[in-house]
């Protein structure tokens, strides 16, 4: 299990998923990352910083955006 820092690129309030840029990944974004439902959609503003929890480092389907800050 690992926490990674990320930047929000876009958010889908319908599927409650996000496209994020993990710190260090300047050229490729990670799409369809599940967002914790306790995060208000209104706070999911592009450019904000995120904390992404990876239950498995290599399984993006098991990653969750658990915090939005800044």
């Amino acid at each position, binding site marked *: 299990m690992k926490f990674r820092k990320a930047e929000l690129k876009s958010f889908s309030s319908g599927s409650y998923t996000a496209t994020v840029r993990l*710190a260090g990944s300047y050229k490729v974004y990670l799409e369809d990352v599940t967002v914790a439902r306790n995060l208000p959609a209104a706070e999911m503003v592009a450019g904000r910083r995120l904390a992404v929890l990876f239950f498995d480092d*290599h399984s993006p*389907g098991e990653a969750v955006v658990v915090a939005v800050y800044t």
Partner: protein
Amino acid sequence: MRELTSTLLDAQKQATAVPYVRVEAANMIGGVVRLDWTRLYTGSESDYFHALAMPADGSLIRARITPPADSRKLYRQRIASPGPGSDFSQWTYTGQYNTVVVAAAALGTEVSIFWINTAREVRRIKSTDSGVSWGSPELLDYSPTTAIYGIAAAYKPGGDLALFFADQSTLYVKKCIGGQWQSKVAWDKTTGDLSGVAVVYDGDFALMVTGKDASGNFKLWSLLHGDGAAVTAGTWSALLELAAAPSGGAFEYRQPFLVKTGVFRCFFIEKYTGEEAYSRPFRSQAISGTGFADGLWREPVPFNLSSEYGLAMAHDNDYAWLSGPAGVWRAPLAALTLDLTDDVISLRQECSETGGSLTVELRNDDGRYSVLGQGDLSVLDIGRRIEFSPGYITSAGSESSAGLSYILESFDHVSAGGKAGLVLRAVDRWTALSDWKARHQFRWNRTSDDTNVLGIIRFVLARAGLGLAVRSQSAAMTGFYPDFTISPGDSGREVIRKLLSFVPDVIFLEGNVACLVNPLASDSAVYSYGDGHQVFEGTYRRGAMKTNRVQVEGLGDGLILAESFTWDQIDRLYDRLQQVGDRDIDSVSEAQQRGQACLRQSEIESEGGSILVPVNCGQQLYDVVALTDPRAGLDAVNKRVMGIVLGYYPRRGEYRQRLDLGAV
């Protein structure tokens, strides 16, 4: 096990044998000659579109366009015998101006320079005497627009040639067959605007293309235009991505150039428009032993230059050449080796499941190895390849088994007690895998099953410069398509180990190749010890399996659960449970495969021990060997080789191997 001659097999089984340990240094990387570039020319020409070709006489034909402020004039240059003393600053004006892009190609004594001008004219001048004299400009065709940012040409061996140019989002090919120019043909892809194209003929037309995809993302692709080798003549292969950057980001790719010297090598420009903006050439090379259609390239690395228009490449038999308007570089193509065999004082080779090393001590009593990396010792330096071939003096002479190579990581000059030596410390390619760090996100199988575990492993190995040879493979290796990601900073070694955790397969590294093996309990022995090949000493451990029951849960939609058991171990020890959860497992059969893979690993590790034997020159990791040791009650019992340590200490009369053992 590597194949050995009958005489070498006989020699290594003798009670007394004379060792032959071959050690060489070589200027190789990734199975091909490492190109060490030397800059021969630094000029003041403006950075703009340019081209390079080499006819058979070894002359260097360069072409360049001046920037729009200087009317986009087309210049050419011929350097008869290019070298360090050549004057690369003299250019001949062709009388052509308002040129947009330029390309060059050569075959034998024929050289062509192509360009498109602002009147949309596609033109060429041709020389039939290696660029000494040139004909009048020919009008070949018209481009649809002047939004042309890429043009490239390549001859076929018979003299036909093809001209490729990128007009907005369309790549066109215009062929000259039997001296007759054909109508231009558009490709069958849908993309955004293109920014560059390069081509080499190799049975098909191998292309590198830069530009945007239909969504506006920036890409560097490889592509084949078929000529009957790997792709049907006249058709196009799929675009294979080598590099990508998102639309709206700060990165883009442009101006690729391509050459084949042993393997395909490419240069392209990565342009960054953020703070501390740069535009810099990057270089990469295809993996030795793979085809262009495989799209397997080493991780691109930056070249020490600032340039918007890239570096054109060409080669003759002796050198590879790089050229931009204001610079010329060359690198020798000769494979150099330095035989160290006669100076070896001692040697130790270690090979395990996750790494390997080679330590060689050389005599240096006369100071012959005092200064490495220069003159005769140019190939003996950090980063160079050290090749090790264990062998014996046989009835056929000095024989050895080649295939083991390492990269020199460090060296120690040793001076003590009136003696001088040089200790070389080299590592195998597990270190290269560890050194490869992802520099951005990778992801496979997000929306569809496009790449199986084998494909992802092959990709990661390639990024670290390694090829993959499949000796045997499990069904899961080709049938499992995980939604898998690699994040920035992840090492290749970590990623490979994670991927191998999905399957029962293992890999071992030899030279620049990772060998994939599916170790089966039914595997037959490939060699025997204790029955012809002496066993000096041995320890044989048999233990309990750390895991004898595995529950695998697929964590996707709906519960998928499968259990796997080793019943005799459970009966003896009660159960030792391992739980595995993986949301990519979406069928019971996949869950069962994973459970069996876990039990298989536990079974192999349940046996241990080692034997000390005279060196078997062909021994490889994961070989199954039959072991006979009456003192331990073993009679042709199969074991799997899990580690190898070879020691060569001639002053002590030692030339031995310790083999770590596991269950079959």
